């Protein structure tokens, strides 16, 4: 019940049927306003990451139990506007309009009320029952800002609750408000626009037949004026004359204001927000005089020289920390797990024994190879993210990203890619333009994820030397820049520049950081464990049955002739498709040794690692790509990268044989 996977959208719509009387509350708001903190406070740590029907947008879902009520809380993605420019915006707006949550809790940042109210005003147009939670009251107070929440409540017509979510202050009041709001269903007032705009809206509403579209009529009229493509298309099917009238109105507005109607409406919304703010907000101290902590840190973090030093140290530190802590945890876990049952691949004996041994080996490999490395990685990364440093790195790297047709925000998926390609691919949706989104995901598949790093360290660093391992990294980074540059030129579509809010720095809130780290790790465990266990069973079983020889023979022209590797590696590459670090496992199992220098020459080891690094993304990553971009693009990436790996490997084998 609690934390149920939200795979089918119908689960929301019919929740009141079948005797299950569970209310649904949606949390909405800009990014960086303390939405996750509020969510955690309301629901406890019990939460799940689910998928939206049809689209892959992560969102958290949890249960609020308060005064005998069970209320399901959905955390919508952090967005600035609901003009449906991005997937996240569209998904949020569809959820509120179609799934009819009982209450929408809009969380706003007290210290940036004006900008946040712009979004609030858009939400009120969806005419759902609403509560406003004014969060970060403490930060606002530090800046000398005080807000008359009672007056704000009167102006908007909905309950307004001041909170400091990180400290849990105001959460009880917010829970009370939610419980009573699911019954009373407080509808916000309509905030009127200027006279010309209101005239237009009235004109469109008069023409519009009842039941046009799924949205409230006033919202539909406003969206028609703005020329929102989805709404125009929807209404055109039912009442084309309304669309024509709306277009005429929009043209009229444009003539009066000298700007497109959409801009006029946004401007008017900001004017309304300004008006409200001027009535409810008071600034006491001349806070501007003093240099804020954020400004002080920014002088270092955004310094043209020191900023880059800090950036390199932090990102370098992230990787060093990951592999030092990871190796340590891995060692402890391996020692513990081998004391339970031996981790030796079994190829003779009863079928039952072989299968059990395969499953156990796969389980141990998953627990000791991946988990120890991703936990410290995600922990450190979440700290950088939550404190506000990651946005500074985005700003500093923006110019450099232009080389690959990307902008600063793409640093987030690229850095995530060092952990695991799958969540990194999914995180590409923070990038607005479809072209750049795909470009970023393509490059992410080339970033050495923890699995590939383990192969490089376990094969090249351990048995050749560390310099060849670093050379492989350097080669990979160079390749990413070059391929990024080429793909940027070749791919159709346009690149747009970055516009990003710069949040104030704050000390990371530990429970949120731990919660987020666990969420990221947990979603990965679900991908890794089954693949490992099934893969490992398959490899041992196939070996025992004698399936491997034909596969090796079939791949021999590539592995032996082109790449100069032992014939047995053919099947290793096949298993690497499941998880790349399983190739180490497979090598050890097939050759019966973990001292790889006895089975391959240094050249062969480097070539082997190079091909593992570049050839097709693992099966989970291909699935993630297909989910986000469709099978055609996912398969093109797969084929391209496999060809690239073979070509590079063949050249490397011949070149390295001369020097090594």
């Amino acid at each position, binding site marked *: 019940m609690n934390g149920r996977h939200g795979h089918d959208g119908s689960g929301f719509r019919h929740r009141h049927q079948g005797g299950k009387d569970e209310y649904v509350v949606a949390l909405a708001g800009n990014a960086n306003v303390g939405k996750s903190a509020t969510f955690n406070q309301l629901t406890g740590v019990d939460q799940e990451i689910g998928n939206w029907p049809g689209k892959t947008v992560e969102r958290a879902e949890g249960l609020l139990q308060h005064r005998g009520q069970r209320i399901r809380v959905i955390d919508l993605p952090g967005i*600035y*506007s609901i*003009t449906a*420019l991005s997937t996240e915006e569209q998904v949020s707006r569809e959820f509120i309009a179609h799934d009819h949550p009982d209450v929408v809790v809009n969380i706003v940042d007290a*210290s*940036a*009320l*004006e*900008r946040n109210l*712009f979004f609030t005003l858009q939400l009120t147009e969806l005419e759902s029952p609403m509560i406003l939670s004014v969060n970060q009251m403490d930060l606002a107070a530090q800046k000398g800002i005080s807000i008359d929440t009672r007056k704000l409540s009167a102006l908007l017509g909905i309950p307004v609750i001041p909170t400091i979510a990180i400290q849990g202050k105001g959460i009880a009041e917010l829970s009370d408000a939610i419980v009573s709001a699911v019954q009373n269903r407080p509808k916000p007032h309509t905030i009127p626009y200027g006279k010309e705009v209101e005239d237009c809206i009235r004109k469109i509403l008069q023409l519009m037949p009842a039941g046009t579209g799924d949205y409230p009529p006033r919202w539909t009229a406003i969206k028609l004026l703005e020329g929102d493509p989805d709404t125009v298309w929807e209404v055109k099917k039912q009442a084309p004359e309304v669309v024509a009238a709306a277009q005429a109105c929009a*043209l009229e507005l*444009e*003539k009066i*204001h*000298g*700007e*497109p109607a*959409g*801009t006029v409406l*946004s*401007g008017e919304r*900001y*004017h309304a927000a300004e008006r409200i703010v001027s009535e409810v907000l008071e600034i006491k101290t001349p806070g501007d005089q003093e240099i804020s902590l954020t400004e002080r840190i*920014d002088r270092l973090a*955004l310094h*043209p020289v020191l900023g880059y030093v800090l950036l390199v140290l932090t990102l370098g530190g992230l990787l060093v920390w990951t592999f030092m802590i990871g190796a340590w945890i891995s060692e402890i876990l391996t020692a513990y797990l081998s004391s339970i049952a031996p981790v030796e691949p079994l190829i003779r004996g009863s079928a039952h024994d072989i299968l059990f041994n395969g499953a156990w080996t796969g389980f141990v490999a998953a627990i000791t190879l991946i988990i120890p490395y991703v936990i410290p990685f995600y922990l450190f990364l979440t700290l950088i993210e939550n404190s506000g440093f990651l*946005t500074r790195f*985005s*700003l*500093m790297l*923006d*110019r450099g990203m232009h080389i690959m047709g990307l*902008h*600063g925000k793409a640093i987030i998926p690229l850095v995530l890619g060092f952990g695991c390609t799958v969540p990194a691919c999914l995180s590409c949706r923070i990038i607005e333009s479809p072209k750049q989104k795909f470009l970023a995901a393509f490059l992410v598949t080339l970033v050495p994820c923890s699995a590939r790093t383990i192969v490089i360290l376990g094969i090249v660093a351990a048995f050749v030397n560390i310099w060849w391992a670093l050379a492989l990294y350097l080669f990979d980074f160079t390749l990413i820049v070059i391929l990024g540059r080429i793909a940027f030129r070749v791919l159709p579509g346009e690149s747009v*520049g*970055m*516009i*990003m*809010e*710069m949040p104030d720095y704050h000390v990371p809130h530990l429970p949120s950081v731990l919660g987020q780290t666990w969420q990221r790790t947990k979603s990965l465990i679900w991908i890794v464990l089954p693949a490992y266990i099934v893969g490992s069973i398959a490899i041992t079983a196939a070996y025992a049955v004698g399936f491997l020889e034909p596969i090796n023979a079939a791949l021999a022209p590539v592995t032996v002739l082109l790449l100069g590797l032992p014939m047995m590696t053919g099947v290793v590459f096949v298993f690497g498709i499941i998880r790349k670090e399983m190739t180490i496992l497979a090598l050890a199992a097939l050759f019966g040794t973990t001292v790889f220098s006895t089975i391959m020459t240094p050249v062969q080891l480097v070539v082997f690692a190079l091909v593992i690094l570049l050839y097709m993304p693992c099966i989970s990553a291909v699935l993630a790509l297909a989910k986000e971009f469709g099978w055609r693009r996912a398969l093109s990436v797969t084929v391209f990268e496999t060809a690239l790996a073979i070509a590079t490997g063949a050249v490397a084998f011949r070149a390295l044989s001369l020097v090594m």
Partner: protein
Amino acid sequence: MASEQLEEYLESILDIEEKDGVAKTSAIAKCLKVAPASVTEALQTLADKGFVHYEPYKGAYLTDQGREMARKVKRRHRLLEVFLSDVLHINGENVHDEACRMEHTLSDETECALCKMLNAPARCPHGSLIEACDRDVESCSACLKDTKPPSACTRDEPLMPVTALRPGQKGTIAFIRGDSSVVQRLTDLGLTLKTDIQLVRKAPLLGPVEIAVRKTRLAIDHAIADHIFVTAPVEKAG
């Protein structure tokens, strides 16, 4: 003094002023490849016409009238460069010289038509910023969509792009260049007309600029920020 020659002088004084603060006679001579004596003579004429303040041996700086004139010519020059290189595909080396000869004969009407046809470009092929036009409009869409003829009246105050502000300097948004999608994106983030903004810092090498608006901070790609024009309280260069 022919108007063509006059405009050339104003342009190079603007360039040198932006670089050195004041335009010395020798620097102007070098820039225009003429004898220093003829520069002195020309500066005297320009001063008489009220385009520059000129002090012998020290150099010249532009009056408001002169600056406006110089910027107008610069704008035409760079628009022409975009036209020559992007539309006519003239050899890159010749673009500058061609534009130099054409800029003096361009009428307001042709300039406006050129700007419309080129979709209100932000930068010339060499990467220099193209100034906003001096027509009293609030965004380009009025011109681009041709819903009304470009307003004939001109602005009272000169505009400058946000990227030309110095860190800490404040301004009020007066005009956003570009098609409606750019304008919409910026408007949604609170960058509406007549909003006060402050430039916080500029990243090196034409990286993003950080601006403060409505009590929050935004990092904006340099090329997008070039589209945001503000009126700023006049500060004496120095």
